């Protein structure tokens, strides 16, 4: 079999979903709700994450509807403030932060390293329950009037000047933070302590390196936002004065503590997506990732440097000029490891045997849109330009490019790529390629105009705007409608594929990871016999060798069967 194989589903005529797998092993709702199987927990997360994503998306729809016209005519200004706040809170804390780690990370990390489960399976389940508790509390908050401080809870607005549900939202985020901490902790222990024999650090898939780096951030950064939220809640309730200038407090202290987490948080959000992109690009160009070591170390570098730059969110807030200088300089540095990844992925594609399945389409979208988003981040990291662009739609466009154009596309790439492994079924390729293209077009129509709006001066978090900005806003809303269709399609056809999708078999993509060398869907214990890793990561030559051996065995078996038929007949 040549290395230039287009996806061919081997054994299509005889492929069957294996009778014993993690889905069929046990039945009943409680077997899912009380499971300690990392794969089932991943499915629980996938369902709940999708639910919260659509709520956040609906809120985005409301925002874009209001912004169709320059006046505040669809909803009251206060309501608008609540809508964009809840949109931010739900999307950041209940979708983006857990998205890839809690679904794909949970499902795949033990399989990729050759382990039976994560190190702490019950803690994993607790993670999901904490996530659900936080999420339901956030929903409750929405129903009893929401909160309007912006997802950043800036003080003293959030502590003194609003009478909305800061406490319940704060508690929801606090609880979700714990969920995140426990997930990260679990991943770090698992990756260190449960790798199969022969699975050295530099034989690990880059997906693992990316999750390892993100997990370090989850463990070290999240507690700081936890204490920041606790202080806000205490300030609101008891008036302790820690952020109140009248009592000698400094509102900026909250921002220091908040952004100390929230900047690393953006790397928590993007790193796992970058891990997905590495896997997808390697598989669909049939090549080892160019500069494996550089990409691995760049993940860790992003995590480490990510801790040094948080005050670039505070350039205009009153920090000292010297702090502005230092943080601006450090921010320039943090862009370098991300750029290294983009270069290495590009060099991987160069002279690769590329096929354009849906995961790769999403990966291309990621590379282009994340590059734009990342570069605009450099504009914002430079304090001179930031003073002009901050608090405008330029910022909104920047983070939507990296988070939606980047992270969400990576998430979709990953869901499509591993869908056959998770469910044993293929999604419909043509329809999904269409959805990917629709998403890409919709995304650009929605968010590119916002860069222009930002440079023209349209402020963010405003329900009304000067009439000369209307045309670009209408473009943006139109794009959002297309984007919505692009996101709805996968839900529909993925659910459809559960019953009617083609059977996938072990390794429909001819990929090299350990997770692809076993059945789809996998056994509850992942592997029938624990594997030994005896080859490098992304070793396509090894895979070819194994497949030749596999074919040889099948041929021999077939011949022996024929012989026994002949002899028994004769």
């Amino acid at each position: 079999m040549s290395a230039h194989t287009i996806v061919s589903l081997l054994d299509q005529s005889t492929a069957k979903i294996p009778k014993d797998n993690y889905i069929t092993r046990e039945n009943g709702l409680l077997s899912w709700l009380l499971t300690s199987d990392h794969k089932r927990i991943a499915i629980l997360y996938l369902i709940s994450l999708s639910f919260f994503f659509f709520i956040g998306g609906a809120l985005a729809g409301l925002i874009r509807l209001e912004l169709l016209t320059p006046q505040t005519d669809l909803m009251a200004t206060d309501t608008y403030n609540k809508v964009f706040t809840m949109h931010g809170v739900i999307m950041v804390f209940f979708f983006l932060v857990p998205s890839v780690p809690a679904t794909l990370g949970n499902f795949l990390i033990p399989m990729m390293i050759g382990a039976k489960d994560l190190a702490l399976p019950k803690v994993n389940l607790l993670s999901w329950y904490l996530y659900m508790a936080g999420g339901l509390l956030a929903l409750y908050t929405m129903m009893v009037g929401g909160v309007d401080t912006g997802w950043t809870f800036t003080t003293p607005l959030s502590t003194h000047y609003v009478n909305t549900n800061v406490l319940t939202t704060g508690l929801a985020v606090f609880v979700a933070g714990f969920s995140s901490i426990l997930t990260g902790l679990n991943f770090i222990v698992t990756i260190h302590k449960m790798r199969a024999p022969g699975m050295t650090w530099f034989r690990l898939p880059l997906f693992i390196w990316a999750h390892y780096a993100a997990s370090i951030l989850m463990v070290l950064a999240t507690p700081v936002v936890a204490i920041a939220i606790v202080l806000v809640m205490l300030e609101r309730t008891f008036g302790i004065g820690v952020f109140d200038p009248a009592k000698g407090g400094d509102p900026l202290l909250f921002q220091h503590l908040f952004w100390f987490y929230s900047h690393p948080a953006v790397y928590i959000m993007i790193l796992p997506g970058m891990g997905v992109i590495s896997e997808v690009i390697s598989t669909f160009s049939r090549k080892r990732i160019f500069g494996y070591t550089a990409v691995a170390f760049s993940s860790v570098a992003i995590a480490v440097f990510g801790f040094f730059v948080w005050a670039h969110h505070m350039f205009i807030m009153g920090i000292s000029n010297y702090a502005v200088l230092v943080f601006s300089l450090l921010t320039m540095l943090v862009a370098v490891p991300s750029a290294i990844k983009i270069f290495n992925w590009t060099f991987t594609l160069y002279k690769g045997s590329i096929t354009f399945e849906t995961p790769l389409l999403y990966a291309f979208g990621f590379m282009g849109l994340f590059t734009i988003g990342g570069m605009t981040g450099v504009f914002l990291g430079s304090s001179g330009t930031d003073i002009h662009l901050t608090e405008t739609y330029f910022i909104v466009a920047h983070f939507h490019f990296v988070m939606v154009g980047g992270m969400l596309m990576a998430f979709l790439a990953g869901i499509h790529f591993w869908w056959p492994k998770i469910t044993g079924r293929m999604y419909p390729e043509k329809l999904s390629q269409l959805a990917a293209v629709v998403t890409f077009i919709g995304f650009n129509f929605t968010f590119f105009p916002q860069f222009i709006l930002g440079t023209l001066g349209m402020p963010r978090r405003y329900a009304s705007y000067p009439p000369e900005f209307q045309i670009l806003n209408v473009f943006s809303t139109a794009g959002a409608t297309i984007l919505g269709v692009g996101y709805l399609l996968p839900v529909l056809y993925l659910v459809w594929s559960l019953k009617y999708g083609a059977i996938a078999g072990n390794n429909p993509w001819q990929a090299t990871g350990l997770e692809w060398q076993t059945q789809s869907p996998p056994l509850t214990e992942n592997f029938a016999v624990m594997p030994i890793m005896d080859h490098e990561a992304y070793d396509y030559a090894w895979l070819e060798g194994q497949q030749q051996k596999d074919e040889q065995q099948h041929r021999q078996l077939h011949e022996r069967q024929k012989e026994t038929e002949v002899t028994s007949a004769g």
Partner: protein
Amino acid sequence: MSGQIEHAHTIVGPRVYMAILFALLLGTALTVWASYVDLGFWNPIIALAIATTKATLVVLFFMHVKYSTKLTKLTVCAGIFTFLILISLTLADYISRAWGSW
């Protein structure tokens, strides 16, 4: 089930613990005494130095880090490092505010 120990690692004995206890008690007495002596700007530095020494003894001996793997030692350092980044960069902002505009 017989008492097989789960992992062969150094079992730290009472003698070490007693020595550390003594050192910690001494450190406490020392730090209280030092706070009553006027050493100018050295006072907080000495208080923190003694506290850090005591903390180090607890970490190394009571928490067995001295006898632990490199990974454990690295983990402890990572935590301390991140904490130091938090306070130093935040304080750098506050202290440099007093320097005025350039």
